[in-house]
């Protein structure tokens, strides 16, 4: 051991409750870029993580506004086609809302948190490949801008009502942007996974890794299994779409393109962005009540099991008759089993609370509130997912699909806010408690209302319509959806405000030890 290398025991003593050590990043000690050059040249993964967090929250706010407009289209106030200027424009926004919340908001938010927190948790000074992490951020951002710009230029993932040549070109650009975003997220995931596997502190086995880092390792593996399948879909669609009349896969005048990619936002693949939620919940609660689990290996198993059940590339039903796949035993088993790890997490959290310090301040702290709300919403989403695969209930092709989606997205966002509060010093700086709690409450209430309304709509719909064009049957439920969307938008605005103010405070206060 070298003179400057701290022994494990010392390092553990310096670590906070869940094992987040506070090593000095090389970028902090060496000549790091300053000012405007910093976001383009930084060698510090924590900086890259901050960029991911702020940019994804900004994206989230924009997409939440689209969500409010889509919800407004479901009420009597305005017809969807009139609100957006045509059926195709409505379809473009409807698909953008769904794809964006997965690829442009929740996944990058959690990846950003991981880039900042994981190296500290495993005792590495920085991530394995900091330049690759920076490349991941910029290629993600450029891909995201391409997606949004091309969708507003008439692109998107297919259409409902005929297209022009220009719109077909814009669709090709959307596909390119989608592929770019996926590759960028995969690069980031590889960086995080390699950091956990190869750069752990001497003496720390894989079983000793804190829950959040473990959950990010599992997430990276799940993404590596799932997201490349979407790239394969995109390759075939793109090859078909470009330059001539499309044969089967890339027909721009139909929703075919969307139907080949919609598995990304449906269960089980949608759970892939919720795996880190379990890690954040365990870590945040452990830190809040200052306790460690008596069975840490059980936490690893629970998170790993949820990851296994979130692998979803196999579940696309465009190429087969939907009933062949989705009534199949594997799909049903995945849907039902996903509840188990979330319930086990609730049990694990209960054990942590029992073992820890149960003062009022600790139990009502922001990380605790966030962890509780995220776990409840994820639990609700997986429960709806389980109901959805029970054939007699006939919920499979109904809006219950979006109840699962909304539950997972809201859980991911709340977990993100909880993580910002838990590791504030590693991330942006001290976040204002009022804004963090406000964001958690608003996102929790909004997400809950969306889950509830979508589930009830699924039960009462006579003619299932996944695009919600015909959901005018129940004005009360449509009103609830609108309120839910407004609350989610307000929650994201509060989270963004909290993040920006924390960043400004952190910048003026300088770098403090966590």
């Amino acid at each position: 051991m070298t003179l400057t290398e701290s022994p494990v025991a010392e390092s553990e003593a310096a670590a906070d409750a869940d094992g987040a050590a506070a090593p000095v990043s090389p970028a902090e000690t060496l000549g790091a870029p300053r000012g405007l050059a910093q976001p383009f040249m930084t060698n510090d993964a924590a900086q890259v993580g901050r960029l991911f967090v702020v940019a994804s929250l900004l994206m989230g706010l924009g997409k939440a506004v689209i969500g409010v407009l889509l919800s407004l289209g479901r009420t009597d106030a305005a017809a969807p086609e009139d609100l957006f200027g045509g059926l195709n424009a409505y379809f473009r926004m409807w698909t953008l809302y769904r794809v964006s919340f997965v690829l442009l908001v929740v996944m990058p938010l959690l990846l950003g948190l991981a880039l900042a927190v994981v190296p500290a948790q495993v005792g590495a000074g920085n991530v394995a490949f900091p330049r690759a992490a920076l490349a991941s951020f910029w290629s993600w951002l450029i891909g995201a801008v391409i997606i949004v710009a091309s969708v507003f230029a008439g692109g998107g993932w297919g259409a409902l009502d005929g297209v022009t040549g220009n719109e077909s070109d814009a669709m090709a650009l959307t596909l390119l942007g989608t592929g770019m975003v996926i590759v960028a997220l995969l690069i980031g995931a590889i960086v995080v996974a390699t950091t956990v596997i190869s750069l752990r502190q001497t003496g720390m086995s894989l079983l000793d890794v804190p829950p959040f880092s473990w959950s990010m390792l599992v997430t990276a593996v799940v993404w590596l299994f799932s997201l490349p399948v979407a790239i394969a879909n995109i390759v075939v669609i793109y090859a078909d779409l470009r330059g001539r009349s499309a044969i089967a896969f890339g027909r721009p005048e139909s929703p075919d393109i969307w139907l080949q990619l919609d598995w990304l936002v449906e269960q089980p693949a949608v759970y892939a962005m919720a795996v880190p939620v379990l890690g954040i919940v365990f870590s945040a609660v452990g830190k809040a009540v200052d306790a460690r689990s008596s069975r840490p290996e059980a936490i690893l198993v629970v998170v790993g099991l949820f990851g296994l059940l979130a692998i979803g590339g196999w579940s696309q039903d465009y190429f087969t008759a939907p009933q062949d796949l989705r009534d199949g035993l594997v799909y049903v088993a995945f849907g039902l089993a996903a509840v188990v790890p979330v319930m086990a997490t609730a049990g694990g959290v209960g054990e942590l609370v029992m073992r820890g310090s149960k003062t009022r301040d600790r139990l009502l702290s922001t990380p605790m509130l966030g962890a509780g709300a995220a776990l409840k919403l994820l639990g609700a989403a997986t429960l709806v997912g389980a109901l959805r695969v029970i054939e007699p209930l006939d919920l499979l092709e109904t809006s219950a699909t979006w109840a699962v989606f909304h539950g997972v997205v809201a859980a991911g966002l709340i977990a993100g806010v909880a993580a910002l509060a838990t590791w504030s010093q590693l991330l942006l700086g001290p976040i204002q408690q009022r804004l963090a709690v406000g964001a958690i409450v608003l996102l929790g209430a909004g997400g809950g209302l969306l889950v509830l309304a979508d589930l009830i709509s699924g039960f009462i719909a006579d003619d299932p319509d996944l695009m919600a064009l015909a959901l005018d049957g129940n004005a009360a439920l449509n009103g609830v959806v609108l309120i839910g969307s407004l609350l989610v938008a307000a929650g994201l605005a509060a989270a963004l405000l909290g993040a920006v103010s924390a960043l400004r405070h952190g910048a003026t206060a300088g770098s403090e030890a966590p």
Partner: protein
Amino acid sequence: MRTTELPAAEAIRPRTVVVAALLATGAAFMVFAALVSLYVQQRQQAAALGEEWFPSGTVELGPAGMMMMTLALSIVTVQWAVQAARAEDRPHGFIALGVTLMFGAAVINQFWFVYQDTAFAIDGGRAELLFYAVTGSFIAMLIVAMAMLTVTTIRSLLGPFGRDLAHAVQASALFWHMCVLCYFLVWYVVFITK
């Protein structure tokens, strides 16, 4: 300044580049596996409907078999390059790299011949489209593998030798082996069981 305030020394990190390459290779393989799965599924669907997939006699087995043998040989030469980088043996390293790249170029050349020979139109039907999607993706991956191998081997052999650079060659070789595995899938699925 106290010594405890200094940054920790760089710890010995086993095979960081190789671990990352393993993960990246796995992701690339998943892309290809998904493409091949789609190809097989669509072909089965066509067969179930009694449709012809490729017109008989258009896809020849000869060039495809030659490519398989070429890539099988490249497995040996790429490992030769890895061994040379480990042993800091510049002459053998450059020869191994050159031969491996030549094999790669030969496979691309052979594919060009296959494309000319089959004369498929990409919009001729699902079979033709998927034929180009699968083989085109393979060629793209092979070009990436050739570029990776060239850069890492030349860096390893021209610069001062180090453990990390030898690992980088090993990582590139890993990607190369995955490409060979992918071609094995193409060979069996597209050319043999056509």
